[in-house]
């Protein structure tokens, strides 16, 4: 068998790409959590009352059923759309790329319809358990308006993909995936400015703790801000957002409400979020996005060949289906990656606060206020668990204590 020069170059390129891909995975897998750290297996019954465990498990049972049904509806809707969505090309006068944008947006619209009953059911359940305060109409309107952002995002992605498909036809994924990641970098950079109802942190104690932890963790000048969410939910949360000069930590105001969380618990939250910044987890997350996106884009390109590839808008409904199915299929991997980074942030927080009791108390309270099952079934954790389980987190605090 003889290999032509072009084929040889293509094979060489593919080999280089694969090598770079493997190298990236090895680099991204690096963590500061000691590799010989063994988390003890803890019994939830030692940390939670039977009533707390029953309430959390009962709450999550419904959520699991709702989630699974929602995924079935999602796939069913997308299958239907992949089969019949092509007909909607007649609703466009926008040319190749414009029609692709329309079909992409309508695909999200169909998904929104399919998910709506499950979202409402989840809201009903959360209201029943006093987790959410949002009204049904307000939730539906918010959800509908939020779809606008999703429409813009899908337009951006489809414009990139179909733009490259115009140049490279079925090899669009080689340039398209990096371009989408580049857009992801841009969005991550500006994301702090897109979060609504954010203001400066006023509590002097929390501010002082934040400054001290920044020094300890070696990440100075990270602004800490507060997002007002108490009208919508009682659940506490915090997040690290932004890149470079836009980096910041956002605390939900439900975390700072008087009497809900102790100062040491809030300190652990701050240290955890600063830990994300210290280890560049947002960059790493983007790196993982690139790692996952490249093969996904390749498979999407392969799967849509029968409909003319993504050069043709007719392929967009099928591409949406393939993309979502692949996303669902690799979600355990993505969750494992996310949990690994969260564990690293926990470990960093323990080192910075040197307060395993505070961390244990925090995780306990997070579980009871959010009604999270502290030790969920493995399949559920694999499907949706983008953080370690509560018992694993408490176990890490215990392991840190025993290493001192």
């Amino acid at each position, binding site marked *: 068998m003889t290999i032509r020069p072009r084929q040889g170059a293509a094979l060489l390129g593919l080999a280089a790409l694969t090598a770079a891909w493997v190298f990236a995975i090895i680099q991204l897998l690096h963590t500061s959590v000691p590799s010989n750290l063994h988390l003890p297996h803890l019994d939830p019954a030692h940390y939670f009352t039977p009533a707390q465990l029953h309430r959390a498990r009962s709450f999550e049972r419904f959520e699991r059923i709702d989630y699974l049904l929602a995924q079935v509806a999602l796939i069913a809707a997308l299958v239907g759309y992949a089969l019949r969505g092509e007909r909607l090309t007649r609703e466009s006068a926008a040319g190749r790329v414009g029609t692709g944008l329309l079909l992409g947006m309508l695909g999200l*619209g169909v998904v929104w319809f399919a998910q709506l009953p499950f979202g409402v059911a989840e809201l009903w359940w959360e209201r029943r358990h006093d987790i959410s305060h949002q009204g049904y109409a307000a939730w539906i309107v918010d959800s509908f308006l939020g779809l606008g952002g999703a429409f813009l995002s899908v*337009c951006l992605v489809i414009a990139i993909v179909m733009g490259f498909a115009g140049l490279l036809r079925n090899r669009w994924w080689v340039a398209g995936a990096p371009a989408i990641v580049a857009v992801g970098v841009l969005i991550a950079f500006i994301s702090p400015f897109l979060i609504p109802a954010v203001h400066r942190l006023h509590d002097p104690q929390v501010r002082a703790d934040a400054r001290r932890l920044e020094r300890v963790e070696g990440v100075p000048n990270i602004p800490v801000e507060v997002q007002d969410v108490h009208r919508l939910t009682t659940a506490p949360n915090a997040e690290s957002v932004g890149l470079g000069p836009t980096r910041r930590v956002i605390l939900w105001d439900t975390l700072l409400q008087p009497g809900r969380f102790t100062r040491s618990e809030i300190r652990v939250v701050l240290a955890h979020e600063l830990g994300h910044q210290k280890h560049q987890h947002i960059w790493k997350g983007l790196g993982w996005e690139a790692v996952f996106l490249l093969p996904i884009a390749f498979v999407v390109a392969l799967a849509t060949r029968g409909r003319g590839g993504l050069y043709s808008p007719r392929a967009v409904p099928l591409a949406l289906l393939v993309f979502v199915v692949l996303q669902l299929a690799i979600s355990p991997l993505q969750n494992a990656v996310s949990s690994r980074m969260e564990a690293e942030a926990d470990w960093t927080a323990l080192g910075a606060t040197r307060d395993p009791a505070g961390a244990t108390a925090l995780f306990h309270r997070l579980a009871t206020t959010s009604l999270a099952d502290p030790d969920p079934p493995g399949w559920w954790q694999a499907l949706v668990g983008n953080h370690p389980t509560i018992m694993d987190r408490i176990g890490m605090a215990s392991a840190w204590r025993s290493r001192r």
Partner: protein
Amino acid sequence: MDPTYEHPVRLTSEEGLERSRLTVFFRLLLALPHLIWIGIWAVGVFFVAIFNWFATLFTARPPLFCHNFLTAFVRYSAHLTAYLSLTCNQFPDFVGRPGSYPVDVHMPEEPQMQNRWKTGFRVLLGIPAFFMDSTLVGGGGRSGYYFTGGALWTNAFLAWWACLFTGRMPEGLRDLNLYALRYGAQTQAYALLVTDRYPDADPFVEPTVASAPYHPVRLTADEEMRRSRLTVFFRILLAIPHIVWLLLWGILALLLGIFSWFAALFTGQIPEGVHNLQTRYVRYYTHVSAFLWLTANPFPGFAGAEGSYPVDVQIDPRQPQNRWKTAFRVFLAVPALLVSSALGGTLFVAAFLGWFVALFTARMPRNLRQAQVFALRYSAQLYAYGYLLTDRYPHASPAPPAAEPAALEPAAPAPAV
């Protein structure tokens, strides 16, 4: 009267454009006795209308005395509004006699059989028409963006100045007012059970004149009323990418507009490349508006290409422009901007009402759609005027513009607003 137009409530006009400056100046004060009288009459109408509603509900036909009383009120109300809005020059009589005024309303002389269901729910059924009426005539709700006076009263304000200085009512404003008056009379007649025929928002039927003067900016619209329910439901969200692109393009258009202003001021016309690009922008703006407001069904392209969309704009090639008109373009555009804002209210309300109808029937009501086409045409003419694509002022008449400039354009054109 147009023999093909079938609505039982029709408006005719034999009024010219000449106006007495003296009566124009004092118009509001002169109308005071009428305003007091119509207020008193309205109290009577309130009680008669309630009685009439019960009577029609039980007998399916309004009693004759109620019918006569209410038709006289509808007619008188139209006379007075025409007088106040400067659509007509003569002082009206106080009883709303048929044929007593140059702008007149024709209604059935005898009470007609009416559908009892429509009678029973008349107030509710009338709500969409009241909304449209509020944008065309005025007196409706508020809105944050649009001028709230309604097209008729906006025109009246502008016409007051025009009549005072020129002694003539601008033809375009007069025609637009006649359309608004017709719709207002039909709404009143519907609400007061004179007829059970719904008001007709189509501006391209009588009493509109056969043809308006030639205009270098023309709008074409197909007759397709089918709408996709799915894209109708998500219409606002689907338009978001276009709105973002429109905003970005708008920045460039604004900068080019400033450049064009200097170019036209010094050379008498704008560069051809700029003219073509700005033409595309105006066309694209119209395509996006037509999509957003349900005037057309398909998702538009992003380039504003001519002939690419069912609601399209044709703009003549560049012509030399009057430098005085160029120099003061921003100020000159203000009256047209007010009219366009008022028509924007009509566009929005027609889209709002059409959204519900299209969602259920998969069709846009033709008369609402035609009202939108008219509003979009005016707005395209305004944009073209603002961006110096033409120095011809937007023409507010709903009548279609003449096809050829030489054949139909008057030697001394009337001031057209």
